[in-house]
């Protein structure tokens, strides 16, 4: 606890009691404004300090604006700086007053002292007042040409500030091209770095509505610039180096020699003490070698030691950031860190968030090797007085058990946890035992024997209680007391606050009833009565449903509620491989720590320069992902009614039969409307004008015959190397994305995807990569126009379980993507896919 120091600090400002203090300051500032008495600057300094301190603690001192500006006519740099700070803070809310400052700031921009010039220019560009930008252009222009690098450095960032206040003014003054020039010619590396930051931001922002700007943005990735920056990289500050490396990571070299040159040049950056710089270097290495499997593996080996050093040498916060990246890497290459697993043992005094990530690392490694050692270590943590870590450790043991085929030893460990008789340990363990039994029903005898001894009275946590109740219902034939425990729970229905537990209790009693009717009939009656009267809608509905089902036919009820089950083979991975790849592409960013791609937590304008421009939003219709949308507890209950593998089907099946999901309809609509868009731009048929007018007159499209698709012929011998494909895929926006229904014949054909690839090739559409496994297949195709070098790129994901194909088309010539899409579709349908 810090002492109440404020009262004793005579020199530092105390909290003002009210407006009186501000007006006090106002009159004092007035007195000093015109004074030329000796020592006046010192008094001013004290007053200014007071004003700034009020500003810091959030008191509105904007009413002093006029007085502050009056007092700022001084040669004292300290005073000037405080005044600049003040003005920067309040100019935006007081644009009229801000005008007052323009004069003295512009004068200072021409001061003899470069320091004053720089400071004044920085303040001038920080005013954030739109109608004052005209006063900014001149000083910025001369600032960029200043002989002093400090002033140029400030001016470059000033251009960016101007862009944010008024992009038009910035572009009209042609500042970007001046910066481009400065970036390759300035001797000062910080000026160069600032040019790069500024241009990246401007071109990225402009890129969304100007093709020229997006070309300029891509030009930042051109070979001469990249080489120019790389060759000088060590002259830059460590922060600027990070900026350059981030750029280099997006660069696509033309060949392997180039890749090795770059990696050799950057090799020693891996030994830097700045973790951010090391991670940025690693990103370059990983991205460059993506298509070179062997080298990629070598890179993993090379980066291991620097990463481990960073984990143990930096602050706990830095360790956290690095561990997050290690976790990403270990998920991609589980063997990588297996011999170093002891590095991830938790240390006594580590922060919770570090320990938690270390547990995740251990879990990932243990699924491949050293399982016994790691589980033993985790069991030590389970006895820890640090409760959150104890819980996490038990969960980790459970996860390992669910990944392993040989769970013999692990089950014993889990059951030992129950003997510890600690509430939270028991609670966590019960949840795990339940999942374990769903995967390995053969262990039920061992588990049931132990679980049967647990008194439900000692279990308070809803999740754990629900798990116990599930087991009691599921294995009631093997657990002597099951009906009586459930009965006592049903009798105390009103004491049970968690609806999740009450839902489970209903289902468990139903199952118990089918197995041991005489013993549980009474309890079921109590539960159904209480359930129907329950205030919670879901509980009420389920009770009523069960009740009516039982009345209708008991044997049918049994088939619905307690059918024979198959063991769960693999629990769904919460993340699709698509998302994982996306996170990997965003290495050394927040995506890795949040374990989400940037589009899930950041709005489009803030994804940073060179982020992928296309959306992946529609990914969620993949079956295994949609199953994840079902809440965990509901999922358990669903599993009672159908086999796990079928979870996706009832949902999908019902929706596909509904006419509103007929995907061909929206498709034709979009076909015509975007054809219209083509026509309106006047690229193709002259007839377009009348057609567009027809539409404007409200005649509707249905009466107008669809225009003939513009002819497009493809080059049957098109060539595109994977590197270029990758680069283009990143740079081009999605020009068309559509979803098609796949015919049963098409689904069957995918057992041999090669046939599809051959067929498409016959249609001049070439496959460059395939991936995925049943039920999700992924193809990347490309095609080129026969008359010019204009590429079409296609990502096609076909899911055989949902019988859908999702396509994304990117094209050099956006206008012809519709025509290409038609060709593509025809080719697919000729193959019998659609």
């Amino acid at each position, binding site marked *: 606890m810090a002492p109440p120091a404020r009262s004793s600090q005579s020199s530092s400002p105390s909290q003002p009691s009210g407006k009186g203090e501000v007006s006090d300051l106002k009159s004092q500032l007035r007195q000093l404004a015109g004074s030329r008495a000796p020592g006046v600057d010192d008094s001013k300094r004290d007053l200014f300090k007071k004003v700034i301190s009020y500003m810091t603690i959030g008191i509105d001192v904007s009413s002093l604006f006029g007085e502050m500006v009056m007092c700022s006519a001084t040669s004292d740099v300290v005073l000037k700086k405080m005044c600049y*700070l003040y003005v920067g803070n309040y100019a*935006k809310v007081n644009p009229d007053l801000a005008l007052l400052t323009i004069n003295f700031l512009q004068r200072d921009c021409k001061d003899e002292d470069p*320091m004053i010039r720089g400071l004044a220019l920085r303040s001038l560009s920080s005013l954030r007042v739109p109608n004052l930008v005209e006063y900014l252009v001149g000083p910025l222009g001369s600032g960029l040409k200043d002989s002093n690098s400090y002033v140029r450095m400030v001016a470059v960032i000033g251009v960016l500030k101007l862009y944010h206040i008024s992009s038009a003014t910035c572009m009209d003054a042609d500042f970007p091209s001046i910066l481009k020039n400065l970036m390759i010619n300035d001797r000062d590396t910080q000026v160069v770095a600032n040019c790069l930051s500024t241009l990246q931001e401007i071109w990225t922002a402009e890129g969304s509505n100007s093709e020229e700007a997006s070309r300029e943005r891509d030009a930042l990735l051109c070979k001469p610039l990249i080489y120019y920056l790389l060759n000088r990289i060590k002259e830059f500050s460590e922060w600027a180096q990070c900026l350059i490396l981030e750029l280099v990571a997006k660069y696509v070299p033309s060949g392997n020699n180039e890749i090795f040159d770059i990696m050799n040049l950057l090799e020693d950056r891996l030994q830097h003490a700045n973790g951010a710089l090391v991670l940025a270097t690693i990103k370059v290495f990983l991205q460059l070698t993506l298509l070179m499997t062997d080298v990629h593996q070598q890179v993993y080996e090379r980066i291991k030691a620097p990463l481990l050093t960073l984990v143990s040498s930096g602050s706990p916060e830095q360790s956290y950031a690095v561990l997050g990246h290690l976790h990403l890497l270990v998920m991609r290459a589980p063997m990588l860190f297996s011999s170093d697993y002891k590095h991830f043992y938790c240390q006594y005094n580590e922060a919770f968030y570090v320990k938690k990530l270390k547990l995740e690392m251990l879990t990932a490694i243990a699924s491949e090797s050293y399982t016994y050692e790691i589980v033993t270590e985790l069991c030590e943590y389970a006895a820890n*007085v640090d409760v959150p870590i104890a819980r996490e450790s038990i969960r980790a043991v459970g996860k390992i058990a669910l990944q392993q085929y040989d769970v013999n030893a692990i089950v014993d460990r889990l059951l030992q946890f129950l003997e510890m008789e600690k509430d939270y340990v028991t609670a966590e363990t019960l949840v795990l035992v339940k999942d374990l039994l769903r995967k390995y029903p053969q262990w039920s005898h061992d588990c049931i024997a132990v679980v049967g001894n647990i008194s439900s009275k000692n279990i308070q946590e809803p999740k754990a209680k629900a798990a116990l109740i599930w087991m009691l219902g599921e294995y009631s034939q093997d657990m002597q007391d099951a009906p009586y425990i459930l009965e006592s729970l049903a009798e105390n229905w009103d004491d049970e606050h968690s609806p999740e537990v009450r839902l489970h209790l209903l289902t468990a009693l139903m199952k118990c009833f089918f197995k041991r009717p005489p013993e549980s009939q009474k309890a079921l009656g109590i539960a159904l009565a209480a359930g129907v009267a329950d205030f919670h809608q879901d509980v009420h509905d389920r009770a009523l449903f069960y009740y009516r089902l039982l009345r209708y036919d008991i044997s049918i009820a049994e088939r619905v509620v307690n059918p024979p089950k198959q063991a769960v083979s693999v629990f769904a991975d919460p993340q699709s491989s698509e998302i994982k790849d996306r996170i990997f592409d965003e290495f050394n960013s927040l995506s890795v720590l949040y374990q989400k791609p940037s589009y899930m937590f950041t709005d489009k304008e803030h994804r940073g320069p060179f982020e992928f421009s296309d959306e992946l939003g529609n990914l969620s219709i993949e079956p295994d992902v949609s199953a994840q949308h079902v809440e965990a507890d509901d999922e358990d209950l669903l599993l009672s009614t159908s086999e796990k593998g079928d979870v996706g089907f009832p949902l999908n099946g019902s929706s596909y039969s509904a006419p509103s999901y007929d995907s061909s309809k929206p498709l034709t609509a979009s076909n015509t409307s975007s054809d219209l868009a083509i026509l309106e731009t006047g690229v193709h048929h002259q007839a377009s004008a009348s057609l567009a007018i027809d539409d404007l007159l409200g005649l509707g499209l249905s009466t107008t015959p669809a225009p003939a698709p513009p002819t497009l012929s493809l080059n049957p011998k098109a060539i595109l190397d994977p590197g270029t494909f990758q680069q283009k895929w990143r740079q081009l926006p999605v020009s068309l994305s559509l979803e098609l229904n796949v015919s049963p014949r098409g689904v069957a054909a995918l057992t041999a995807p090669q046939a599809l690839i051959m067929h498409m090739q016959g249609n001049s559409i070439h496959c460059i990569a395939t991936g995925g496994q049943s039920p999700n297949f992924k193809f990347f195709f490309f095609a080129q126009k026969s008359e010019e070098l204009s590429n079409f790129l296609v990502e096609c994901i076909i899911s055989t379980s949902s019988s859908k194909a999702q396509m994304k088309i990117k094209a050099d010539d956006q206008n012809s993507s519709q025509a290409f899409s038609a060709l593509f579709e025809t080719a697919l349908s000729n193959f019998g896919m659609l």
Partner: protein
Amino acid sequence: MISQFFVLSQRGDNIVLRDYRGEVQKGSTEIFFRKVKFWKEDGQEEAQAPPVFNVDGVNYFHVKIAGLLFVATTRVNVSPSLVLELLQRIARVIKDYLGVLSEESLRKNFVLVYELLDEIIDFGYVQSTSTEVLKSYIFNEPIMVDAARLTPLGPAAIFMQGSKRMPGTAVTKSVIANETPGKRREEIFVDIIEKISVTFSSSGYILTSEIDGTIQMKSYLTGSPEIRIALNEELNIGRGGRSIYDYRSSTGSGAVILDDCNFHESVRLDSFDIDRTLSLVSEILATFELEPGASGQTADFKEANKKIEWNLKKIIGGSEQTLRAKLTFSQEFHGNITKESGPVSMTFIIPMYNASGLQVKYLQIAKKSSTYNPYRWVRYVTQANSYVARL
């Protein structure tokens, strides 16, 4: 690229706030503090907020230094490593200028702090974090906080070099205070700090062991002379692909094997591979802080975290100390009691000793004149990082 930077006290008071880009709403300090203070994860309240989290599209980064929260915000998907490193560096630069990093020193010197912040970052982009480079842009002079009110440096006071005693307050000097020539003491501090982590199993077997060491330097030399540090000649880096737990003859014979190492920006490694010397132009590399030491021998049971704490002021080498503790449980206990009572964790500091054997053979400072002979303090210290025996 960051949007805002601020420093909060432990109570959540705003000490310094700089909004660089105006992209994040005004109430961000309160949102941040409430989130950190009442962090919940999976419904568990005990958990500790991670250094990075996102609330409504705003990313908050924070590091805890000297009881203060250094925070940055941004809406952009930036490199977390970069921002966290930056926050550390900002704190270090501020400490270099103020001498002491505390709530009081920040409050007294906030104008100087703003001056620094304006030069370190412009519109969210890092410009420079070098204490040396920043010197030419800084005009305010630090107001020193009362040295008597500082927590005693504890172990630092133990450091001796021959018969000379290391001035305990030296590391709390500002780099720009007392710039008057002649008055200023020419000195340089080199600290070899090693943190050891060992875990013993209940049978006494060593489960894990590692040493993390740093060489830190703080220079008060004028004129940035070149400094050369020579380390052990038999210094090997890397184990050629062997696991670090695969020990082979790394002890004895004076040879030191490092698994890996990294270097600060200003270090030149031109001759490192040849004769194991590092050279650099005088700059503040890092600062050195140690926790206050133990006072007398006491033993106490802390109810809150269920720990027995036993403090010993000093242990003479080769001696043995025993503590008997009796555990009384409020209710009957069935579980494995030995497993429940443990582990034993030791925290200690061994001055003028380092476990790895890494040595500074010499510390050479480029001479300006024959009479130029600055004070050189080379100190070794070994600290327990996580020294744990399981029962």
